[in-house]
């Protein structure tokens, strides 16, 4: 084996990146299939000796994990729909129509996306308490949709801008209205962009903790990050439960990014390269 064989270095490089990215998730999975006796033994074991699904049974039995999962799904799903719907309309206008002060609006969008959530949290708490909406899904769906709106809009503006105008004009000459052209020509071509924006909005909402813990604190309304985080205070040795619950909570996100990885990378880096 030659040391300057480039393929060895390639393998090594790949191993570093893959191990760095996967190790924490892998370790929490390993933790989740060890029994409590094995988890509290020194020295620690690296390969589970008696793999068991007991922690998963407990995670669902002792805590309303299925309910947390449902809450996360409802909030992430509806906020994504709202966000992408609203963003598509705005992005079409910004990319295609004569909008007065277009650059100011784009700058404002970037500015709003930088608002610290911790600052918005204080007035949002007051507002939703006054409206009697705290501990309802709507109290989290609206902020989550708004938080992803700037990024979704900016992503979609560049997608719409990439669709040839001639196609749209041709449809309009053929007798379609502008909205008809939008629906039949622009929407199908923009679908990949809409999809990318939707994935980013979904992951953002699925991950969000600060507003979720402030606006939906009731046990039946908690999302996964809020519910699982609180196990720490409720159990002396919470790791069997936390690890199993984390694996359950990570599966949807892991699936989404595994299936749509190229799209996600494209959506994430778009702003960066152009900026």
């Amino acid at each position: 084996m030659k040391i300057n064989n480039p393929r060895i270095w390639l393998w090594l490089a790949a191993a570093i990146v893959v191990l760095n990215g996967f190790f924490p998730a892998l370790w929490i999975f390993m933790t989740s299939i060890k029994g409590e006796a094995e988890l509290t033994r020194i020295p620690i074991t690296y390969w589970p000796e008696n793999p068991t699904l007991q922690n998963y049974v407990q995670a669902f039995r002792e805590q309303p994990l299925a309910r947390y999962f449902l809450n996360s799904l409802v909030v992430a799903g509806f906020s994504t729909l709202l966000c992408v719907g609203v963003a598509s309309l705005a992005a079409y206008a910004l990319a295609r129509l004569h909008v007065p002060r277009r650059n100011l609006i784009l700058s404002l969008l970037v500015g709003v996306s930088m608002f610290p959530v911790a600052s918005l949290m204080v007035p949002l708490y007051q507002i939703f308490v006054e409206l009697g909406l705290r501990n309802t899904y709507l109290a989290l769906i609206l902020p989550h949709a708004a938080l992803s709106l700037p990024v979704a809009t900016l992503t979609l503006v560049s997608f719409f801008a990439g669709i040839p105008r001639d196609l749209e004009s041709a449809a309009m000459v053929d007798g379609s209205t502008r909205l008809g052209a939008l629906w039949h020509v622009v929407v199908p071509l923009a679908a990949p962009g809409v999809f990318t924006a939707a994935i980013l909005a979904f992951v953002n909402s699925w991950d969000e903790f600060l507003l979720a813990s402030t606006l939906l604190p009731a046990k039946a309304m908690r999302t996964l990050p809020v519910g699982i985080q609180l196990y720490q205070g409720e159990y002396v040795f919470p790791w069997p439960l936390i690890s199993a619950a984390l694996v359950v909570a990570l599966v949807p996100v892991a699936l989404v990014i595994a299936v749509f990885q190229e799209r996600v990378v494209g959506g994430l880096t778009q702003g960066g390269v152009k900026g």
Partner: protein
Amino acid sequence: MSERALAIWLLLPAGLLLGFVALYPVVRLIYTSFFQFQLTLGPEGSFIGLANYAAAFEDPRFWNALKNTVLIVLITVPGALLVGLLLALLANLPFRVKWPVRLGLLLPWALPLVFVGLIFQWFFDSQYGVVNDWIMRLGGERQFWLFKPDLAFIAICFTIIWKTSSFVALILLAGLQTIPKELYEAAQVDGASRWQSFWRITLPLLTPAILVAMIFRTITAFQTFDIPYAMTKGGPGNATETLAMYVRVTSIENLNFGYGSALAVLLFLLSMVITVIYLRYIRGADD
């Protein structure tokens, strides 16, 4: 319908949503910050001008939180850039199968911050943690990572760097892929070493992407909340409490909205100063 009217109708829903959830709350936040308003004392507040801000500047816990936040920015932003650059250079090698490396960069980005905090709390567990196991195998001593102020701070910074470096790597990787290969070939013909190519070609051409990643990271680092909250709740004592955490304790847990709002305004101003610099930079790059 005129084009202008259509444009306004299309922009209206976005404007309403952002107005209700972002712009109105900011106005309300600034307004509340001028009041003595504590739910535990009664439902009404009284106007006290800038007294909440004066109190903040006298409050050692505020300065401690600000110091921790600034330290996190100063340590984790360069840290994430360095690790991210290394990961991007490794990931840019000509692999035949690309998806494992791509997923290796995407997974840390997609993991919720709170979950990363929990997982690394488990890593740094003084009894059963992987980190102590490695240290003891190498002949070192067990460390009480999350129970000693300095060690807890180091553990948190390490975790933040791990979590954020992969996003940096994705941005830098996209930047690396725009550098034409011909440049490296030409440099090689001219007898340049790999090291020289890196300093003379890669780094200068990557500078815009590095700057963008740095600015994004800086803004989000000022807002750090989830990872220290999940790992230490700001402890031991207030050793790892950030500004965002102090805002939350003051307003949501102690229901002191007047003072909490003033703290939140200060956090907001800090973020907006960085954002304005960022927008300036983008505009500068466009010219």
